[in-house]
């Protein structure tokens, strides 16, 4: 089973250190880990550091991988104007690093990713004609089609309507449970984090504030000190924790 552990990890752009001294417990396949924190906390930078796109001190230890490309990353949506269909766009992500000949297995994986995200109906649409939310799902399919052991998604629900948010997070839960993927997901919605993730890391100003089981991490104190809001966590009738925001500090 895949594992990921960060030890005193820092990341820098040029000489500017953006993220520093991040140490986490060992995360395992089957877990969903929420990456939380306000804007500009360093979440995307940490993803890029784990992926090896940025330099820095410390160790990113990944073990137990089975895939050719063990880590797949879905960055935040920046729009796309390429004259490609959704099907081609997902195939493109699958084919990176491979030769130009497309095998039936590659097409099957594309269709699997599209099916899992329930966007097969978009297959023939041009990527440039999609809404932001649809593009975000295609972007998730592009990460999924790489069959990674570790899937990292940077704010994947930011442009989705509520129905699609819940559905996408449900898909991630199934991927973790059934395919034993380790999923790291940056979220702003702490309610979603409480409901769908097993562990959470909270970043602020490039430093790790706290890390542990999500229910233990998201507390009224965290809401007040990091998010500058007041709120409480209560158990709903089914015993699941529920976040109630009362107001800004």
């Amino acid at each position, binding site marked *: 089973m895949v594992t990921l552990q960060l030890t005193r990890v820092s990341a820098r752009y040029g000489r500017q250190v953006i993220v520093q001294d991040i140490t986490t417990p060992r995360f395992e396949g089957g877990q969903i880990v929420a990456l939380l924190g306000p804007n500009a906390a360093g979440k995307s930078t940490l993803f890029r550091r784990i992926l090896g796109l940025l330099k820095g001190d410390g160790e990113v230890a990944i073990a137990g991988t089975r895939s050719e490309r063990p880590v797949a990353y879905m960055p935040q949506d920046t729009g796309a104007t390429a004259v490609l269909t959704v099907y081609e*766009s997902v195939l*493109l992500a699958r084919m990176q690093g491979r030769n130009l000949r497309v095998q039936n297995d590659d*097409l099957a994986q594309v269709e699997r990713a*599209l099916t899992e995200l329930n966007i097969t109906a978009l297959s023939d649409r041009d990527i440039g004609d999609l809404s932001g939310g649809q593009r975000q799902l295609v972007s998730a399919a*592009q990460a999924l089609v790489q069959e990674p052991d570790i899937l990292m998604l940077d704010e994947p629900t930011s442009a989705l309507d509520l129905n699609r948010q819940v559905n996408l997070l449900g898909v991630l839960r199934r991927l973790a449970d059934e395919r034993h993927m380790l999923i790291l997901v940056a979220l702003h919605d702490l309610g979603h984090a409480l409901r769908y993730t097993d562990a959470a890391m909270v970043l602020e100003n490039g430093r790790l504030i706290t890390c542990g089981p999500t229910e233990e991490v998201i507390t009224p104190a965290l809401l007040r000190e990091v998010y500058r809001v007041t709120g409480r966590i209560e158990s709903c009738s089914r015993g699941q924790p529920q976040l109630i925001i009362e107001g800004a500090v």
Partner: protein
Amino acid sequence: MSTEPLAAEHAPEGRVFYRSQILRRQLILLALVAALFVSLCVDLALGPARYSLNEVISALFAPNSVSQQARVILWEIRMPTALMALVVGASLSVAGAQMQTILNNPLASPFTLGISAGASFGAALGLAFGVAIIPTAIEFVVPINAFLMAMVTAFLIHALSLKRGVTVETIVLLGIAMVFIFNSLMALIQFFASQQAVAAVVFWTMGSLTKATWPKFWLALGILIAVMPLLARHGWALTAMRFGDAKAESMGVNPRALRLEVLVLVSLLAAIAVAFVGTIGFIGLVGPHIARILLGEDQRFFLPGSALCGALILSVGSVISKSVIPGTIIPIGIITSLVGIPFFLFLVLNHKKASW
């Protein structure tokens, strides 16, 4: 979504559409090849001595079946020019296509990035003052000067692009700045040069296929043949570049390394083309856009499609340049600008789907 089973469920309609799209593109490429052959034949047939298409085809496939005079005119005089049109058109179009791809900008081309202007300046130095940037035989001074200045421009743009904070938009602005700088230098050369030299410079900058010879053709073809597979092997990565650097990186592409390699390769293509036939604008802009509309941006089709579209445009331009005024060959650069741009605007404005 959450009720869907996790096991692979085939989406046959998606695959069927994809397959039909592939087939359609293969047929379009074949049609372009056929159109190119027709255009080549018409180009060969036209000139002071006119031949029928039958005679041209006979001369191509059974040279002994036509008169010696026809054989000499078609094979020795017209063929290098006609074939040069194909190779130069393909080279400029591929160069434009990949510049647009790696810079993610629809306005990028050898012309707009100043590479053609740099080459023109190098050529003008040779034509006006006989200055050779590196010592060489007198007949090669102009093309070698043009080539060197084109490469210098490309590397200058690339070096500036490596500076921190420089975006792809800035690179295009740098290219435009290069165009203005070289245009000013050209004006300065023309101010100091003799009247005869000014005429030579002006004619060179118009771009003309009549400069073509067999050795130049073989060299230009050799470079095109060498560069195409080097670009093709990056096909998936280049297609990914159209999603922007961050997305391409997330797919495992190294955008900076790829951009440098491709910039060098396409500058070579553009430099050779401009060095041998002068400044021929807009092919690098129009060719890729037509290919994009016809074939999309999957590089497996976009790359050969761009080459074929560029070759076809220049070949048709060559036909037009011979047909407008009987007995006179108008410089091809004038034709490509006059005919290419309205055609391009027509295509873009009448095409329902976005071409960028």
